[in-house]
């Protein structure tokens, strides 16, 4: 008989792996990818390619230089690059896109210890860094066929130019100005349903996040449907806020997290300087995840109070 392996139980595994999860996220993002190219044209594909490729190269290069174990095969860098691209306007200078990838991968992800260790969402942090570094490029929106104005619907809301507001259907399909991947709620919802069906994410964060925004804006008399469909709420709630290391690990914690994100989004949108508040809201909530985790710790079945 050959020598046999001895290892600790369990001896079977459910075959899920980090790369499978990331692959599922990429599949879930593919409708939005198709949507962005359809809406914004081939330049969108170029931006997306640059972001993904540079994210992978940054991760690979960093790990080579620092002599760390290579992890690009887990596809997480691809997801980060793709999500970053989805947060950029189509006419963003490519060097700025690459700079954003570098911030996301090196500054936010690798400096904090790599996959699973970052406390803030890499793509979102990079977006915010770029928003502050390149305010003009980050808020110059290309003309979209069918849309009357190139401004994002939320800018229209903020400036009061409501006569240019696209119809709700156009908002839902994504035929309006905005970042690459955020405009088409239809594509994002398809991806979200896929992720929930594959049990990559649970419904808690997206539902509580989007629900909170809807209810609060309704209370404040802010046209809740437009608030839902106009900005980056769906991409944020489905793909950004659900990022594993930067969101709570328990379902009750996820509800609180989504609620907080929704609350902050509405506060920024209604009273803040920026027309859009999803990124800042998620980043702020990222920072208090450890506290939410502590607050929502599971109570062991039959455990004595510690």
């Amino acid at each position: 008989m050959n020598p046999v392996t001895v290892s600790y139980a369990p001896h079977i595994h459910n075959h899920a792996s980090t790369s499978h999860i990331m692959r599922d996220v990429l599949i879930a993002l593919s409708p939005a990818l198709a949507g962005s190219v359809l809406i914004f044209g081939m330049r969108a594909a170029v931006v997306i390619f640059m972001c993904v490729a540079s994210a992978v190269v940054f991760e690979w290069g960093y790990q080579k230089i620092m002599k760390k174990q290579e992890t690009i095969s887990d596809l997480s860098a691809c997801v980060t690059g793709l999500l970053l691209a989805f947060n950029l306007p189509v006419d963003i200078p490519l060097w700025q896109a690459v700079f954003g990838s570098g911030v996301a991968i090196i500054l936010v992800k690798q400096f904090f210890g790599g996959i699973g260790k970052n406390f803030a969402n890499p793509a979102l942090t990079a977006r915010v860094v770029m928003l502050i570094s390149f305010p003009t490029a980050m808020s110059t929106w290309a003309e979209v066929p069918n849309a009357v104005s190139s401004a994002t619907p939320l800018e229209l809301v903020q400036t009061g130019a409501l006569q240019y507001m696209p119809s709700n259907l156009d908002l839902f399909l994504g035929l309006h100005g905005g970042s690459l991947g955020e405009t088409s709620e239809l594509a994002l919802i398809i991806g979200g349903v896929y992720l929930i069906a594959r049990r990559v994410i649970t419904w808690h964060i997206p539902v509580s996040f989007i629900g909170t925004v809807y209810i609060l804006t309704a209370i404040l008399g802010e046209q809740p449907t437009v608030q839902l469909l106009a900005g980056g709420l769906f991409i944020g709630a489905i793909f950004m806020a659900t990022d594993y290391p930067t969101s709570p690990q328990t379902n009750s914690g996820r509800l609180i997290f989504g609620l907080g994100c929704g609350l902050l989004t509405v506060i920024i949108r209604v009273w803040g300087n920026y027309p859009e508040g999803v990124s800042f809201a998620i980043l702020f909530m990222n920072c208090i995840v450890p506290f939410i985790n502590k607050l929502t710790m599971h109570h062991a079945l039959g455990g004595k109070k510690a």
Partner: protein
Amino acid sequence: MKKIKGLHAPHCKNTAEMVPVAIPTPAVVTLPMKMHAGKPAIPVVKVGDQVKVGQLVGEADGRISAPVHSSVSGTVKSIDEIDGLIGEKRKSIVIASDGEQAVYEGLTPPIVTNLEEFLDAVHASGVVGLGGAGYPTAHKLTVKESVQLDYIIINGAECEPYITSDTRAMVDDADNVFEGALLLKEYLKPKKIVIGIENNKPEAIKEMRERMATVDGMEVCELPARYPQGERKVLVYNVTGRIVPEGGRLTDVGCIVINCTTVAVFAHYIKTGMPLVSRVVTVDGSAVNTPKNVIAPLGTPIGELFDFCGGLKDDVKKIIMGGPMMGAAVPNTDLPVLKITNAILAISEKDVEASKPTACIKCGRCTAKCPMRLMPSHIEDAFELKNIDLLKKYKVNMCAECSCCAFLCPARRPLSQVMVLSKKMLWEAK
């Protein structure tokens, strides 16, 4: 009440329909004096003694121990320290079989008229928790006067993949299981006797239901076929809704959980006087040519069981005693069948996963599915920090070692191993 749902592990109950067949008498059996939890038995035979089937060869050392009986007739060859499952040394009696399988003349059915005699009989039968825990049954059934016993739950869940020896006990040995249940009812007087069976065993459910329906206070509880329904605290909770307190016993909530094969064994003993000398073992796995359920004398080298099942394929990479979720991977096939050996598995190289852990991505799967509602990823962090206070806070002592967390972990963190090592760390810090 929200039941503990558990997770979906592959069932692989390939041998569920296979009636156990007896293997040829082995030439040599090795009977470790410790096949149970508690103190090892004390040998009462000498090298060179003639022994027969059912004859006492190891005497129980007190009540938290169990006697060992010869499983073959023949000559005692040696009494030595022999490698156990995990490389530890165990005093074992090696008996060379004469092939006759002559039954010991001194075996007579015990006289059982009251609780004390019943417990003595259970003790003398040598039976221990045959589901894998190996706790001496007589001691488990000895409950304090103050305990109000509401439930005796007979564990027929058999939630581990592959294993079907309990299933076969409930089908082929249904009368003994039922009679054992009647004995428990008569002498321990619980309010209710429930047998919990996962719903992927329709035949066992039918057999048990036919019999249980004739008696008041006995019922069959169908459980979802999801791992780990057979974990004792999970079983108590899902059947009764009661939560066993931390550090407490099942009797604290008025329950006893006992494996169905165990029940059949002491019923058989009380009827015939034949103690536990052989058991049904499921032999399965991708590297076994013809998987079977076999009846093997205790102490038979597991290699002989594999040989009886058409031998092992060339690409065998792992030998497991017990199920794939909680069983122990063993280094060779010389180890003997123990009282608790409900299955032996041989797994092909292609099915043995190279488990190279990657970084935890904090997905929360381990936390979501822990039947004890612990947070394994937090425990792992505390373990790596060697932080005893955190380990206490995260209640690692309550881990049932069911391996659900490690089974699910997409980063293949060795979580179940970490749990066991953390418990040890906690124990040593006391």
